[in-house]
Each structure stands twice: as structure tokens, then as C-alpha cells.
């Protein structure tokens, strides 16, 4: 019981006691030193904090920066490859027609035209599209993408008569171009245009039709208005479910009553039956921005009276086809 050898528990108790004692002693020493103000206050380094923070987090920041850079470049590369694979040109095909393929059919045309067709013999036009008269005095509208970069622009009526056209105005943003053929001596003013221009937005599902020149002959096509906006939400255009082909570009888009509601410009290659037409309201805005000098004195006043409202479709087409022209453009 009172043996000389101590049990481990006794040793531990004593060690525990020493620990408590020493702890108390330390507290006393601290209080004493503090009371005698012998403890130097530590120097706080505020400036070193930023540096130290940087040193502490440097590796994290480096990794974050590396990830950010890699993400950025990966995004750019992915976006590029996406763009390449979905090129806008591929998706959004402008409906102009290259003329190389139609050279063979020109002979027929040349036979009918005394001399006036010679120009095509010498230098076959490179691209072709459609256009239609705005006024009986010879102003017409077509797509800018047909006439841009052109040396000369000719228009050919449904009867095969060719007129030299002058570009009065072009609006690359909305892909519109205004031509004038009134200066050509062969041009005789026509009766007033039978259609009027409808600037108000048309309703979805509106039955629409178009006339154009996807080949040497005028071609009729019909469909319906499928969306109030164009390619990628372009509010300046309609989406129309109508079958068009290269050469239809610049053709008029008319509603059932024969009001022009738009101008055919393009179609989406990747999806079936998505054709785009620039809205008439955009055309009217473009007309207003033409400087009077460009008009060379001829007033450009649009027809307001639609004379085809009660006509049957066949009669409407018959009325209209004299006002829809094929546009042929020569480029170097």
C-alpha cells in the first residue's frame, strides 16, 4: 500500500499536477510581466499582409489563371469550329443565280432579240436574280447582294426585252438595292403598277405568293408566312414557307390580295422551307433615305391603290408578270 514503487496512475497524477502548476505559473508570469510592461508589443506588419496573402495564395491563383486562360481559348476554338461548320453562307443562302449554267439557253433568247441580246453573247452575265417595279416610271427594287460589285446591271422583262439599269441606292444592311431603268431609251412607261405596298406587319399564316426568275422563264411559287422574324431573329425580315431557288432573290412577296409585303432575299439551307423576305416597311424606310440627287428629278411615289384585290390568282399573276424583271449583273 505504501510501497516505494509508484503506480503509473500516481505518476500520471503527479505529472498532471505539474502541468496544472506550470500553467498557473505561466499565467502569473504573464500577468506579472504585463503589469511591469515588460512584454514588447508585437509589430504588426500591415504592408506585408498583401504580399503574404499573395505568397499564400499564389499557387491557387496560378491554377485559376491557367484554367481561365485554357477555358477562354477552348471557348474561342470551339466557337470558331462551330462557326466554320455552320457557316452563315451555308445556312443562309442568298438566292441569286450564277449565270454560267444558263448560257446554253441564251441562244433562244438571242434569236428573239434583235441586237439587244448581243451583250450577253459577248459577256455572259455572272449572276442573276429577280426584281420588280416600284413605279411605272422605271424604279425597281432588287437585292443588294445581286448587284453589289457589279460593272453593269441589266434587267430583262418577261417578254425578253433587256434594259440597262442604274443603281440608285443600295442598302447592304437590309440587302436592298433600288434600280432605275427609266433612262433607257427603249423603256416606255407602263401602266401604273397593279399592286400596292403593305407596310403593316402581316399575320402569321397569311397565304403568300411570289414571282421570280430561277430560270429564264418567270416562275410562280406560293406558300404561307411562317414567322414574323427572319434568320436568327432578324426583325427586318419575315420567314416564309415557300419554295424558292437561286434566282428568286429580289422577287416580290405578295399576300392574297396582291399587296407587296416583302422582298425575297434568302433561304436557310439547313432547314427545309425556311425562306426569308425583307419587310416592305424596311423598303419604305430605304426609299425615304434616298437623296433627291440620285433620283435625277424623277419622283419616286409608290402606288397606293391595289387594283388586284378582287382578282383571282391567275389574273393577279397575269397582271403582275409584266412588272417582274430578271436582273442580270456583270462583274469582273
Amino acid at each position, binding site marked *: 500500500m505504501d510501497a516505494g514503487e509508484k503506480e503509473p*496512475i500516481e505518476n500520471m*497524477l503527479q505529472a498532471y499536477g505539474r502541468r496544472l502548476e506550470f500553467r498557473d*505559473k505561466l499565467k502569473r508570469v504573464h500577468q506579472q510581466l504585463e503589469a511591469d510592461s515588460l512584454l*514588447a508589443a508585437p509589430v504588426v*506588419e500591415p504592408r506585408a499582409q498583401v504580399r503574404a496573402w499573395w505568397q499564400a495564395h499564389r499557387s491557387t491563383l496560378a491554377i485559376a489563371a491557367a484554367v481561365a486562360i485554357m477555358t477562354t481559348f477552348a471557348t474561342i476554338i470551339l466557337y470558331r469550329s462551330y462557326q466554320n461548320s455552320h457557316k452563315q453562307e451555308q445556312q443562309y443562302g442568298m438566292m441569286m443565280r450564277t449565270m454560267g449554267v444558263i448560257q446554253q439557253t441564251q441562244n433562244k433568247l438571242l434569236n428573239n432579240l434583235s441586237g439587244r441580246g448581243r451583250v450577253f453573247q459577248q459577256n455572259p452575265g455572272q449572276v442573276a436574280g429577280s426584281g420588280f417595279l416600284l413605279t411605272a416610271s422605271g424604279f425597281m427594287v432588287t437585292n443588294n447582294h445581286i448587284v453589289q460589285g457589279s460593272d453593269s446591271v441589266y434587267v430583262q422583262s418577261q417578254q425578253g426585252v433587256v434594259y440597262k439599269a442604274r443603281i440608285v441606292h443600295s442598302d447592304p444592311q437590309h440587302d436592298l438595292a433600288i434600280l432605275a431603268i427609266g433612262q433607257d431609251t427603249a423603256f416606255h412607261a407602263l401602266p401604273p403598277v397593279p399592286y400596292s405596298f403593305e407596310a403593316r406587319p402581316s399575320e402569321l399564316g397569311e397565304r403568300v405568293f411570289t414571282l421570280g426568275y430561277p430560270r429564264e422563264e418567270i416562275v410562280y411559287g406560293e406558300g404561307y408566312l411562317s414567322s414574323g422574324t427572319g434568320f436568327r431573329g432578324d426583325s427586318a425580315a419575315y420567314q416564309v414557307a415557300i419554295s424558292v431557288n437561286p434566282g428568286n432573290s429580289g422577287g416580290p412577296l405578295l399576300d392574297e390580295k396582291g399587296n407587296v409585303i416583302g422582298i425575297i432575299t434568302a433561304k436557310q439551307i439547313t432547314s427545309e422551307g425556311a425562306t426569308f423576305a425583307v419587310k416592305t416597311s424596311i423598303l419604305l424606310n430605304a426609299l425615304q433615305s434616298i437623296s433627291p440627287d440620285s433620283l435625277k428629278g424623277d419622283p419616286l411615289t409608290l402606288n397606293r391603290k391595289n387594283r388586284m384585290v378582287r382578282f383571282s390568282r391567275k389574273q393577279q399573276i397575269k397582271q403582275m408578270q409584266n412588272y417582274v424583271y430578271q436582273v442580270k449583273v456583270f462583274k469582273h
Partner: protein
Amino acid sequence: MRETTRLLSTDEALLIGLAEGSDRALSQLYRQHYPMVSQLVINNSGSADDAQDIYQETLIVLFEKVSAGDFELNCQLKTFIYAVARRLWLKQLAQRGRSPLIRANQFDEEPAESIADDLADHQRRDQQFDQMAESLAKLGEPCRTLLEDFYIRHLSMQAITEKFGYTNTDNAKTQKYKCLTRLKRLFFSSYKDTE
């Protein structure tokens, strides 16, 4: 005390003084290294109280090592204190769920391995002492006071006999022995529980 007249300048002299329980040595040691440790703690998002706790803990590590008599200082005392304090504070920060990153210049000659061992010993002792405190609390009166009086407050058996009103010291010793046996049982049962 003997040392009070001696100038305690070297680390060795200070440590001998510390082991002998000299107040002067402790006071001098305390003064000498307190600014270093408090700066370490305060510059690493600690308060002055944290600094005091960490420093005292560090000195406990030192004291217990010195008292055990097997202390071999294979670096400067300053280095040892700094290294221990830095690790203790790091642990504390980790326990608080703070960033374990600490800005402190590590001394080159720091004997990392032996300090890690020292701290492992310290942690083990800490655990034992915690269990001891717990067991003592469970022991209940009068056993607890009796044992504390004898082993911690170093009262003589005679004083304890008088304090507790035992008839003689043998009676007190028997009582103490019984208490110690109970404490042993409590302590080792909880010791096993945690293992």
C-alpha cells in the same frame, strides 16, 4: 533561490533554470521569446489572447520535455520555440476551419522530425491529462479533493488526515488507496474507450 543572483544568459542556463522550477528563469525565458511568437500569431489572423495561449502551450511543451530530463537541444532554443509555436497555431487554425496556410519564415536549421515527435508526445500527454481531468471529475467527493490535495497540492498525509477528519494517517492512507484504485479503474476504462 540559488539562481536569482546569477545572470541567466545562455539557452542552456535558462533551460536548467526552467527544469529546476526557477521563477526568474521562466520569467526571463518568457520575456525573451514572447514578441516573436505573438507576432507570428497576430500576423496570422490571431488575437493577443490566442498568442498568449499558443506561447504558453509552447512553453509547456518545452517545460515537460526539459523536466523529463531527456531534452537534447539540437538547434537554437529560439528556433525550437518558433517551430513548435508555428505548428501549434497551424493546428489551431485548422481546427477553427480556417485556411491552414500560414505566413511564417521557417528557420532553415529547424529539426522538423524531432519536433514532430515532440509534438506527438505532447498531444498524447494532452489527451491523457484530459482523461485524467475527466476521471477526477467523475470520481466525486471526497476522493477527488483527497487525491488532488495529496498529489497536486502536495499536502502531507497529516494535513489531509486533519482536513478530512480521519482518526489517523493510516486511515487516511487506506482511504487514499481506495480512491486511487477507483480513479485507476475510471481512467483506464475511458482510456480503452477512446482507443
